[in-house]
């Protein structure tokens, strides 16, 4: 699949809540190729910081030629990105990785924390393909601030879990699923490893397909350096060992194929 490096013009950036930023970049070649669950590599302008920062696509607007990234300030790079303003430029490379394979089955979209953003494009894509609202169940887990929640509501019913109980169910996304007695045939998920591990167990118990989007430290972002592996349940065809590359074989995997 084609990949492009673009000097993206920043269209806008807003702060959604403390530490969470919402950045829209003009990057028409990437936007034209990208799908939900894929990510881009974003580069720092500082010569001392060499490695790209992988950030998932939160929305893709092919017509406008823009991509939208929602991210948390976690360190040097994301802090630098958070200072970008309309008119600035930022180097991006993508689209990278293997995103979500969408099925027409009744879906649960499950996001946790900073894993929520890539699921917005996923929900939109399901909706665009004609899936009815009631088959798009959206379960979002947060510490407290429920960023992006309102935008999800246009695509399906949103169920919230918060750690502090300030919105929705107090607890995890699993608590929210149980409390709302939700069921589905397929899960699309992204979030912290413990959440994904719980969802893998849950989906195996229920006998349903579960897609998880994984995170790992990356160098090349395109499958060449073998920095970003996760363990696979079976021997991987490319690596000939039980390792898959999150950046190329993933970030989205069928939960059954990997060890979380």
């Amino acid at each position, binding site marked *: 699949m084609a990949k492009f490096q673009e000097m993206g013009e920043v269209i806008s950036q807003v702060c959604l809540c403390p530490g969470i930023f919402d950045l829209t970049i003009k990057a028409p070649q990437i936007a034209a190729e990208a799908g939900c669950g894929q990510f881009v590599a974003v*580069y720092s302008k500082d010569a001392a910081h060499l490695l790209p920062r992988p950030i998932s696509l939160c929305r893709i607007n092919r017509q406008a030629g823009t991509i939208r990234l929602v991210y948390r300030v976690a360190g040097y790079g994301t802090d630098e990105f958070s200072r970008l303003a309309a008119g600035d430029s930022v180097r991006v490379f993508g689209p990278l990785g293997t995103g979500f394979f969408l099925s027409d089955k009744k879906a649960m979209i499950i996001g946790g924390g900073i894993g929520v953003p890539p699921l917005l494009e996923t929900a939109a894509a399901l909706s665009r393909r004609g899936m009815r609202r009631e088959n798009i169940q959206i379960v979002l887990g947060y510490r407290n601030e429920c960023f992006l929640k309102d935008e999800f509501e246009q695509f399906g019913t949103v169920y919230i879990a918060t750690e502090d109980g300030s919105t929705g169910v107090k607890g995890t996304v699993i608590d929210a699923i149980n409390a709302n007695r939700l069921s589905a045939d397929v899960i699309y998920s992204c979030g912290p490893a413990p959440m994904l591990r719980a969802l893998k167990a849950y989906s195996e118990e229920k006998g349903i397909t579960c897609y998880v989007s994984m995170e*790992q*430290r990356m160098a*090349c972002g395109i499958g060449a350096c*073998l920095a970003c592996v996760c363990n696979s349940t079976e021997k991987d065809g490319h690596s*000939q060992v*039980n390792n898959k590359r999150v950046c*190329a074989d993933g970030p989205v995997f069928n939960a059954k194929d990997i060890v979380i």
Partner: protein
Amino acid sequence: MSINTSVNIAGVTLKNPVTVCSGTFGSGMEFVEFTDLEKLGAVTTKGVASVPWAGNPVPRIAETPSGMLNAIGLQNPGIDVFCERDIPFLKNFDTKIIVNVCGHSTEEYVDVVKRLADQPVDLLEINISCPNVKEGGIAFGQKPEAAYDITKEVKKYAKQPVIMKLSPNVTDITEMARAVEDAGADAVSLINTITGMKIDINRRTFALANKTGGLSGPAIRPVAVRMVYQVAQAVKLPIIGMGGITCAEDALEFILAGATAVAVGTANFADPFTAVRVAQGIEEYMIRQGVKDINELIGAVR
């Protein structure tokens, strides 16, 4: 002005002096979508062993100032799949093939070298310097006698010219270069990564699962240039220089210091278009400076 950019490494002609560092470019497959491999003098592949290796646990990398640490642990699919898949892939392109070889023991190196004897590859690069895996060659690369022995052994079976890849983690790099020259090496490449460590002060743990990793990137370039210069003064072998090359200017430092060819590594991560740009930039420099033959520049600063 017609200029010559081709160089000769142990009888193999590279159309230009630029290749990539083993381990930073896979076998080129992932780069081919957006890079023209034929613009490179050679493609150097990720280290391959006699059987598949699983490598180290994650995190395998960490960023450091103008550099990075890696402890991939030489994960590789083994020589069989490599011969079936990677070599045929690379044969589609008009560029030379340098296969990087690793092993836990002399026997394992020799196995791979024998297996490659009838393969259409141009040069072998023997990694005796990877500092990540306990048995991954650290002993061979840090003792002149061991480097001599492995070179001798590999040369017995190699059908292609042999490049010995040197580790910078030594007191005297010229001693190592002389040892492999004496043992019959056809060329040397340097430098491999410098052993480093990063600590996550908030989680109070090592940044890499392996604790230590290999430092690469622009941070180490001055060390690499120094070692290339020292080796160029000490032995007659052609040198492939590497360590922190990000642009043509960086590559030219190595060439002027005595490298016949250069390799782009970590910079491929910072910008996947780097290697091809380096090759172009060298040509531009030659035109600008009125240099007709790249060979005039090799070792020109003394």
